[in-house]
């Protein structure tokens, strides 16, 4: 079974530029998550989709971050414009629905904003 795929693996941009990350979840997983992991911290949930609907985006900085999940499969996360404090690893995860389901994580995209 293929795991969660993410691209790119690394990205370096200058502040005020825009950037987009892509995620392909495990086939059949209805729930998709985007996390931000700042160095030395645990992952923080940015947005959670169930199929192609948003169920939680309470910690997404909506003035600069946006995400979509077309057709309930792939997802993209965009930052526009980027700030220095956006430097982090962006992790995508997916899971089945149901109580206590395990989330499966992709390798992450490491973003450096200069």
């Amino acid at each position, binding site marked *: 079974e293929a795991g969660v795929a993410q691209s790119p693996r690394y990205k370096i941009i200058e502040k005020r530029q825009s950037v987009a990350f892509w995620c392909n979840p495990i086939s059949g997983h209805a729930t998709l998550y985007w996390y931000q992991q700042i160095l030395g911290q*645990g992952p923080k949930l940015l947005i959670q989709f*169930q199929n192609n609907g948003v169920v*939680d985006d309470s910690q997404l900085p909506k003035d600069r971050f946006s995400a979509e999940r077309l057709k309930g499969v792939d997802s993209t996360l965009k930052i526009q414009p980027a700030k220095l404090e956006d430097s982090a690893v962006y992790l995508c995860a997916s899971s089945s629905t149901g109580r206590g389901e395990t989330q499966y994580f992709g390798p992450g995209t490491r973003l450096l904003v200069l």
Partner: protein
Amino acid sequence: AQSVTQLDSQVPVFEEAPVELRCNYSSSVSVYLFWYVQYPNQGLQLLLKYLSGSTLVESINGFEAEFNKSQTSFHLRKPSVHISDTAEYFCAVTSFSGGYNKLIFGAGTRLAVHP
């Protein structure tokens, strides 16, 4: 609101020694508990989880964790560590509310195994 506290940010240990990584949580509702491991430049992998039933859960590579409801803890233990266990370990808690799970992570504990 739920929260997770990992009491040690770093734990150095010698190879073949026992180790305990501590995790405490707070929640007003029933929870499910997880330990994830993150190797350098990789995503997180599930190590073990507690949903219900026996309070002692085990992983395939020798780790175990015990759910203690009265102390709101879920400490991770291994009786004899290997160099390959060097990684970052994250404790996480979730409840099932509104039809979905929301996972809250601790800050992580960096386990460094020395020869």
